[in-house]
């Protein structure tokens, strides 16, 4: 599909598109990767790739769902690279790379370890008007796996309806509902687990509603 159909140059037409969607793109990327620098870099790279492959877009009205696929793939790929790099670094810290035979520790140990690795790159400073409860939620979100974090970000941070989410995720609303259920279930588990460790401020998942400290 052509980029310039109203007398504008392709650059001008694309500038309008970028300016219309840049905030959403940045905030979604921020939710997925957890820090400002990466979110800016990845959202700008996604726009560049969208420009390069604009001819693959079938309909002008569908720009954002199409663009979102580019953005999320970039973010997920970035997270995977970060995880691999982090695993490699931790292996080096443990005294050199392990052979596959050495990696046969239980799967739950690996699962328990992964969130902590991801968590390191999730900057608590990106949350507005921080307090103990918000920090706890953001930490828990950072420990969700990618697909579950994605639906939480789209629903709670972008305020999208199920229909809009289904369009972005190229799935039906039933899948959205089901992913949201498991994402929230997992969030509850993470928060419960965190609260089961001794903490002087513990209520159920932190300070009660209305009693949040600023």
């Amino acid at each position: 599909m052509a980029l310039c159909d109203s007398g504008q140059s392709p650059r001008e037409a694309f500038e309008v598109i970028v300016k219309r969607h840049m905030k959403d793109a940045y905030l979604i990327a921020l939710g997925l990767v957890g820090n400002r620098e990466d979110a800016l870099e990845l959202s700008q790279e996604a726009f560049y790739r969208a420009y390069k492959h604009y001819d693959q877009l079938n309909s002008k009205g569908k720009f954002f769902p199409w663009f979102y696929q580019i953005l999320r793939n970039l973010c997920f790929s970035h997270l995977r690279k970060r995880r691999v790099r982090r695993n490699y670094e931790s292996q080096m810290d443990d005294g050199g790379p392990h052979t596959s035979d050495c990696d046969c520790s239980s799967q739950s140990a690996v699962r328990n370890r992964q969130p902590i690795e991801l968590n390191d790159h999730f900057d608590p400073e990106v949350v507005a008007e921080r307090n103990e409860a918000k920090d706890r939620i953001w930490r828990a979100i950072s420990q969700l796996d990618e697909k579950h974090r994605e639906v939480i970000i789209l629903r709670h941070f972008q305020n999208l309806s199920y229909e809009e989410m289904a369009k972005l995720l190229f799935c039906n609303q039933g899948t959205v509902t089901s992913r949201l259920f498991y994402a929230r279930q997992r969030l509850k588990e993470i928060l419960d687990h965190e609260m089961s460790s001794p903490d002087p401020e513990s209520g159920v998942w932190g300070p009660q509603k209305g009693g949040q400290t600023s």
Partner: protein
Amino acid sequence: MTCQDHKDLMMAYLDDELNEEQRRAFEEHLASCPDCAKDMEEFKRLKQMTDCVAFVEPEDRVWNEYWNHVYNRIERGTGWILFSLAAMALLIYGGFLLIETIIADPAVGVLLKIGLLALLAGLAILFVSVLRERIYFWSRDRYRDVRR
């Protein structure tokens, strides 16, 4: 309907995505099922807490410069494509001239010339072979249009 079915409705109820009839039916179930009612309370609480979290918006400067950063990438991308094409063309042309000079030079030994031609022939065969293999697999790849 089982409790599991109602759990699927729980999210839609929580996010106000049910129609009036579904909402009423679900509320009736909640009134008669303490387990679901307890889950619902926890999910409500979680939603309230999650809804309170918002991101810090970057300062205006970031948005003012945003397009320039994207444009720089576009410009550089075009630059790299031109540079790569030109470099490749020049390398091929330069290589061709060099080989032509070596072949035409009577001072260069026949053995060296034969070796050079064999090297080029080998490279050409390898290139054609790899290209043919790629085209063969690409044309039979049933998943080439699948979004990855």
